[in-house]
């Protein structure tokens, strides 16, 4: 056997294998299916039940005026809880799963540094959430445009936006929704590293927006609403107004950073310093 020198791998190599592992896990496909099914079901259902033979109402007219309304409508609904659930599926699992399988001790005795492993896993969870979001938007846009055409859009302010610009606004809206989702992913990563229990970490991550929605309903706590992560899930709607309402979007940026960055930093430091005693 020839002697082979081991050396620290590149982060891209570690990331590639993290993504490779993701390909073989059922929850990966469960999350992606959850993201694309609502727009697909919505468009099929609408076409079956609200076709030309059915009487139209105002809502139906707005929805079917252009296919580009579908991704906006889907983002409005999926952003509340479905994408947080999908993001949590991988973020809450990514460290805890290795703990449960006993593979963490195996990968931490190779030449990749703990920091590299953490970053690769964090990037994997972030990329997965992005993929789910992009896939849902793509399916919603494609299905909507196929059904109702690539036409101008009427914004929330009542102004008309040409179709190409509306498409750009949809991409931008997804980007600004992705930021609070990313914050939740960071919290999921922290919980995954701390709890070492996949189910507990996923459920706890999903519970966070639910608790925040409940907090938002408590009378007398209106003052905290702008600082709730769940409020930031709707900040992207500022793009759907004319002129663009940048206030909630810019506010969302730093609120998301307040949630996400400390969670990521604590998770990182914990992972660097923690004992790997199981498995």
């Amino acid at each position, binding site marked *: 056997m020839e002697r082979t*020198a081991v050396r620290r791998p590149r982060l891209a*190599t570690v990331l590639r294998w993290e993504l490779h592992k993701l390909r073989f896990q059922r929850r990966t496909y469960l999350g992606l299916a959850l993201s694309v099914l609502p727009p697909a079901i919505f468009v099929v259902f609408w076409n079956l039940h609200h076709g030309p033979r059915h009487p139209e109402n105002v809502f139906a007219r707005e929805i079917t005026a252009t296919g580009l309304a579908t991704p906006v409508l889907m983002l409005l609904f999926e952003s509340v809880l479905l994408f947080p659930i999908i993001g949590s599926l991988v973020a809450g699992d990514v460290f805890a799963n290795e703990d449960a399988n006993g593979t963490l*001790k195996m990968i931490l005795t*190779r030449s990749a540094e703990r920091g590299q492993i953490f970053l690769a896993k964090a990037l994997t969870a972030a990329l997965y959430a992005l993929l789910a979001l992009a896939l849902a938007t793509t399916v919603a846009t494609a299905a909507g445009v196929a059904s109702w055409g690539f036409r101008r859009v009427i914004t929330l302010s009542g102004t008309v936006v040409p179709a190409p610009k509306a498409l750009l606004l949809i991409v931008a809206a997804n980007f600004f929704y992705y930021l609070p989702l990313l914050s939740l992913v960071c919290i999921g990563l922290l919980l995954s590293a701390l709890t070492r229990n996949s189910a507990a970490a996923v459920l706890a991550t999903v519970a966070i927006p639910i608790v925040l929605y409940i907090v938002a309903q408590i009378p007398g706590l209106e003052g905290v609403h702008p600082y709730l992560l769940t409020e930031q899930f709707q900040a992207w709607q500022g793009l759907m107004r004319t002129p663009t309402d940048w206030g909630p979007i810019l506010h969302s940026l730093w609120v998301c950073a307040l949630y996400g960055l400390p969670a990521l930093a604590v998770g990182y430091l914990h992972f660097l310093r923690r004992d790997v005693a199981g498995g």
Partner: protein
Amino acid sequence: MAGGDPLGGVQPLEARGLTKRYGTLTAVDHLDLVVPGGSVFGFLGPNGAGKTTSLRMFLGLIRPTAGEVRLFGRDPWREGAAALAPVGGFVETPRFYPYLTAEDNLTLFAALDGIAKPKRLIGELLELVELSHAASQKVGTFSHGMGQRLGIAAALLRQPKLLVLDEPTTGLDPAGIRDMRLLIGRLSEQGITVLLSSHQLAEVQEVCSHVAIIRAGKVAFSGPLEELRAAGRSWRLRTADNARAQRLAALVAGVRVVGGAEGELALAGEEEAVGALTVELGKAGIPIYRLSTHAPTLEELFFAFTDGDHGRQELAVGGGG
């Protein structure tokens, strides 16, 4: 097997005052250990003695509460992967990604080791551990023994200078155990230092040049196996009058009566001192029927060191010459 100091003063593994506490429980208590270069070092101890915790600290998986570990002079906790570069191995059962094939698992580990083009090496290692036929099989379908063998392959992938193996023969059939012994011997001949944690005392006795026995988180003995055997060697004496012989033995410098059973006295002492006792017995007119040395087995020594005073007593009177 352990030859001089091939590493110029830097030992493959040195632990100084290594301690790990979990709240009020002290799992490892000021453990001092040196694994000499080129040795096959048996790491022995009963369950709960702190073996696995020590191994995890050796590999930088657990942070010591106090003390330090040096792998070829480098601290695995502080220096991380860089300190582990010349080290391969596993603690407890080696684990793999069950949904990946054996080959994919090794390719993943090779990637984490920064090994470029590992395909040929992986092929050779799978052949070495007799898993070539299962290269494309998902590890989730592997038997325990196959997992152990894959663990060896994963450890050797790094071409280590120090190989840390925790119970490597667990789950192997007799032929597999024999092959493992031969493999360890071959690796040692290639200059690889092997740290072998095992409950199989016969295996340790056969392949190890050095041993450390730990008990309640502390090193009870550490050194060459021959030294351990010499430390545990005793004499068996049978005379016409054991009671008088015992009184006489107490008067001879360097001889200690450490027990007695089945009409024999168990004595501890150097050859010269016991020789002097025989002269005194002759002068006293006490016929000697039998005088023999008793070299304890590793198992007897193990229990002597791990069962405390009771074990030592057993060691002194056990065997039968």
